[in-house]
C-alpha cells in the first residue's frame, strides 16, 4: 500500500498491576491522545481497538467497549485481535480507512488487564489445542525464549552477561519514564542474583505481564495540514505479514517446527521488518531509533539482527559497544522496553508507536534520542502474528 497517515495524538495509561477494568486504561489513554491532538472526541469518526481475550465479551469488542465509555457519538468501530500485533492490526485498519477516503480521523486504542504469574491456557481436556498440549507436557512461554537464548550462546558465543547488559541498558532508559511500571536502575549483579526461570534466563531476563493502555489519533495528511499539524510524525509503513512455510524456528505454542523437506526454512521474525522497509522505501541504515519486543533480554538481540541493525550474530557485541544505548549509534528501546513495562498485549504495539512519536517530536525528555527522524517497531506473538511499523518525520 502506498500513502502515509499522520499521528497527531498519542497517549498512554501508565503500566502497572492496577487491577482495574481494562476499559478504564483504554479511556484514559484515548483521552490523553485526544487532548494531545487538540481535537474533540466527536471529530473521531473511526475507533479501532486492539482486542483482549482475558476480559470476557467486552474485551472481544474492545473498540466498542472503549467507544461507549467515551460516549457513543455514532462513529464506526472495529476490533482487531492478533495477539501481540493486535495494536498494529488495529492501526492498519485505521490507516486503510483513512487512505480509502472513508474517514479523516481515527482513534486507535489498546488496553489490557492481565492475571498474575504465567499466562495459562483455557481449562478442560483439549488435546486438539496446541496451547493446551504444550502446557500439559510442561512447556511454558519462557521455555521458547530460553531455547532461542541458549541457541545464541551455542552458535554465537553470547553469554548470560550479554543478556544482563540488555536489562541494565533498558532499565537505565526507562528509569525516568512516567509510563513505565519498573523504574529502577538494575545492575548486572541484580540480574545475576535473580532466580533462574528457564536456563539461561533469569527472572530479570524475562518480562512480566502488566495492566496498561495506549492510544493514537491518526488522520489524513490533508486533515493534519488543515489543523496546523502539517509537520506531524507520519506512519510510513505497517507490516503484519504472516510466516512463510516452512518456518525455521519452533514457535510458541507449537511442539515442532514445520518440516523443511519440501522447501528451505524461512525466518518469520526477519520477514516482519523486511516488509516494512520495502513499504517505506528505506533501509536499516536510515533508522535512528528502534522499539523492539524484548519479551526476554536475549530476544532483543535477535530483533536487532532481524531488523537489520547489525549483522547476524553481532548484536551482543553491538550492545557491549554501547551503540544501542541512548546517545549511541542506534538506540534500542529508549522507552525502557518490555523490561520496564511488562507486557499488556493489545496495548504494547501501540505503546511502541507512542514512544517513537515522542522521540521523533523531540518530546522524550531525558530519554530523548537526539535528531531522531526514522523509527521502527517490531513485535511477534502467537499463531503467526507479528508486526513492524515505521514512523518518520
Amino acid at each position: 500500500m502506498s500513502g502515509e497517515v499522520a499521528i497527531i495524538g498519542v497517549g498512554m495509561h501508565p503500566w502497572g498491576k492496577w487491577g482495574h477494568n481494562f476499559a478504564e486504561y483504554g479511556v484514559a489513554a484515548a483521552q490523553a491522545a485526544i487532548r494531545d491532538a487538540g481535537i474533540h472526541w466527536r471529530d473521531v469518526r473511526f475507533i479501532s481497538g486492539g482486542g483482549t481475550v482475558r476480559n470476557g465479551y467486552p474485551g472481544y469488542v474492545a473498540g466498542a467497549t472503549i467507544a461507549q465509555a467515551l460516549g457513543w457519538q455514532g462513529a464506526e468501530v472495529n476490533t482487531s485481535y492478533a495477539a501481540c500485533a493486535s495494536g498494529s492490526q488495529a492501526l492498519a485498519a485505521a490507516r486503510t480507512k483513512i487512505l480509502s477516503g472513508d474517514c479523516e480521523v481515527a482513534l486507535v486504542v489498546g488496553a489490557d488487564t492481565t492475571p498474575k504469574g504465567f499466562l495459562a491456557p483455557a481449562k478442560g481436556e483439549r488435546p486438539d489445542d496446541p496451547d493446551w498440549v504444550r502446557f500439559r507436557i510442561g512447556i511454558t512461554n519462557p521455555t521458547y525464549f530460553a531455547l532461542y537464548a541458549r541457541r545464541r550462546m551455542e552458535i554465537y558465543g553470547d553469554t548470560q552477561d550479554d543478556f544482563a547488559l540488555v536489562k541494565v541498558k533498558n532499565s537505565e532508559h526507562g528509569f525516568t519514564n512516567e509510563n513505565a511500571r519498573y523504574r529502577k536502575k538494575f545492575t548486572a549483579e541484580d540480574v545475576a542474583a535473580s532466580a533462574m526461570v528457564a536456563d539461561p534466563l533469569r527472572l530479570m531476563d524475562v518480562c512480566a505481564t502488566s495492566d496498561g493502555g495506549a492510544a493514537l489519533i491518526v488522520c489524513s495528511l490533508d486533515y493534519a495540514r488543515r489543523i496546523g499539524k502539517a509537520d506531524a510524525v507520519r506512519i510510513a509503513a505497517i507490516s503484519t505479514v504472516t510466516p512463510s512455510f516452512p518456518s525455521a524456528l519452533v514457535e510458541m505454542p507449537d511442539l515442532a517446527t514445520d518440516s523443511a523437506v519440501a522447501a528451505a526454512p524461512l525466518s518469520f521474525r526477519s520477514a516482519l521488518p523486511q516488509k516494512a522497509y520495502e513499504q517505506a522505501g528505506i533501509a536499516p541504515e536510515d533508522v535512528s531509533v528502534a522499539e523492539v519486543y524484548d519479551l526476554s533480554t536475549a530476544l532483543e538481540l535477535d530483533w536487532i539482527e532481524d531488523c537489520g541493525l547489525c549483522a547476524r550474530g553481532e548484536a551482543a557485541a553491538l550492545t557491549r559497544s554501547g551503540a544501542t544505548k541512548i546517545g549511541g549509534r542506534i538506540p534500542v528501546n529508549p522507552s525502557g522496553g518490555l523490561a520496564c513495562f511488562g507486557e499488556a498485549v493489545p496495548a504494547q504495539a501501540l505503546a511502541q508507536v507512542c514512544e517513537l512519536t515522542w522521540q521523533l517530536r523531540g518530546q522524550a525528555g531525558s530519554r530523548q534520542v537526539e535528531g531522531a527522524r526514522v523509527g521502527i517497531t517490531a513485535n511477534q506473538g502467537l499463531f503467526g502474528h507479528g508486526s513492524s511499523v515505521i514512523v518518520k518525520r
Partner: protein
Amino acid sequence: MSDGAAQASVPVLDGWFTTDGAAPHLIGTRCSACGTYYFPKLETFCRNPDCESSQFETVELSRKGKLWSFTNACYKPPEPFIAAEPFIPYAIAAVELEREKMIVLGQVVDGVGVEDLKAGMEMELVLGTLPDANVPEGKLTWRWKPVEGASA
C-alpha cells in the same frame, strides 16, 4: 523410564507416540505428494502452500536427532501441567531430526540437566512419566535422552 514409574501405561496424548519401551517413536504423518512431515499428525490439508494434497501416510518419526537447543523449567508450570510434590525442575530439549528436517521439543530424562547438554549432541527418544490428576501411577510421555557417550 523414570524412576519408580514402571506402571504407567496410558499415554498422556493418545496416538502421539508408540509405547514400545525399548524403542519408542513419535507418530507423525507425511504428505503423500510433497513429502512434508507433520508432528503432531496432520491428516486434512498439506500446509505447504505449493501442495494441494490431502493424502497422508502415518509414519514413525526418527528416534534420534541432534540437540538444537535446550533449557529447563525451574518453576512449576500452570495447569494443565500436573506436578509432583515437591516440584522437581526438569530440562527441556529441542532436537533436530535430519530425515524430517524438523525440530521437536520434549522434556529431557530425569537426572540430566542443562550442564550435561551441548548443542549438536546426539539425542534419542525414550518413554517417561508425567504425573496425572486421575491416574496415580502417572501417564506416559516422550522424553529426550543423550545417546550413551554422545558429545557435541
